[in-house]
């Protein structure tokens, strides 16, 4: 498993009960979880931000995360949450699942085997942080970050 320094810090902080540090940049965020995915060694990241973001800002944030974490080009999931204090895997447990859903602002999925996916980025909250009745989908490809 390839762990970046940030991920190691997150792991240590989580184990010790310390608050996960905010990572500075154009969009400050906290990396709450980093997970290796089966079967392709993809990555899943859970990040939290303090302010609602519009879709261009979300894309900027996704590029920041990719630049920092350098996930392999197999499969990638990034969940962006608004004001989430900690991440406990819900695994079907409704109170945890409801809490996660309430904070969900955007979700990005990318799979190298699905090159024609046009709905990789879903946005669940508006720019006031209120939930959208229906998720909005946007085209985005993190491999084109910086180009």
């Amino acid at each position, binding site marked *: 498993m390839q762990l970046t320094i940030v991920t190691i810090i997150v792991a240590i902080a989580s184990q010790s009960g310390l608050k996960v540090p905010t990572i500075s940049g154009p969009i400050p965020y906290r990396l709450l979880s980093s997970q290796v995915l089966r079967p392709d060694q993809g990555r899943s990241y859970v990040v939290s931000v303090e302010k609602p973001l519009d879709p261009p800002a979300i894309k900027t944030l996704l590029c920041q995360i990719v630049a920092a974490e350098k996930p392999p080009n197999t499969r990638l*999931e990034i*969940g962006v949450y608004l004001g989430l204090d900690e991440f406990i*895997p819900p*695994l079907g*447990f409704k*109170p945890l*699942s409801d809490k*996660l*859903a309430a904070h969900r602002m955007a979700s990005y*999925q990318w799979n190298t085997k699905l090159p024609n996916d046009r709905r990789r980025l879903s946005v669940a909250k508006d720019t006031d942080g209120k939930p959208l009745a229906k998720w909005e989908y946007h085209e985005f490809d993190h491999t084109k970050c910086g180009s």
Partner: protein
Amino acid sequence: MVSELCAREDLFKSGRCYGVLTGSHDECLEMPEPTDPVRVSTDPACWEFAPGGCGGGEDGGGGAPQGQQIIGSPGFVGKVTKGLGIANRKLANADADCRQLFADIGLAVEDVAATMNATSFVDGTTSQAQIGMLVNQQYANAVGAATVAQLFANSPGLSGWSPPGGTAYLRPSDMSNGLFGLGTNWQLLVHETLHQMLGFQRDDNWIMTELQNKGYRINPNSPRKSRQISDVIKKKCN
């Protein structure tokens, strides 16, 4: 041919451990019936004694999924084995609708099949596996259960529990469905496989909401809850 049954041979000989390493999915039928079902159901699964688990298969044929185990009573093993056979056929013959279903949650159907065949399926109602070890202690505290068996006992509607890591836990009675319970709930095996592939954050609620937003007839607030995921798998991949 029956594969080697268990790393803990003494447990097997005493009729207390029924772990099997599957070869082709129609084997394992020669396993002895337990003389005392209660003892069978209360003993820890053999892999819990021996990491690496039930010993390797001896048949060498049929392209046995490496490391996959099915652990539970003979009836459970038979049902899961049959379900895997059906699910493999469905996924191998996936049409455009079936492929699109998995693509809509970011997965390729070939990967779903491969992961399913590398996932162990265990009777969750008897498993003494520690939830704190499988997920973390925060989660164990939140759900109020120390073992997987306790989680199933506390959650009557729970059909399967599948923390990413290679093992999915099932409620044996939910492996049957249809008229008089004669059908095999193969779609539950696929459903639980999805959780092996998706990140922790992408739980049933996320899958249902994602599919609903992409036009599938799913309602996360329906009384059928996450069974709708299994339903849509069956509908789109049948």
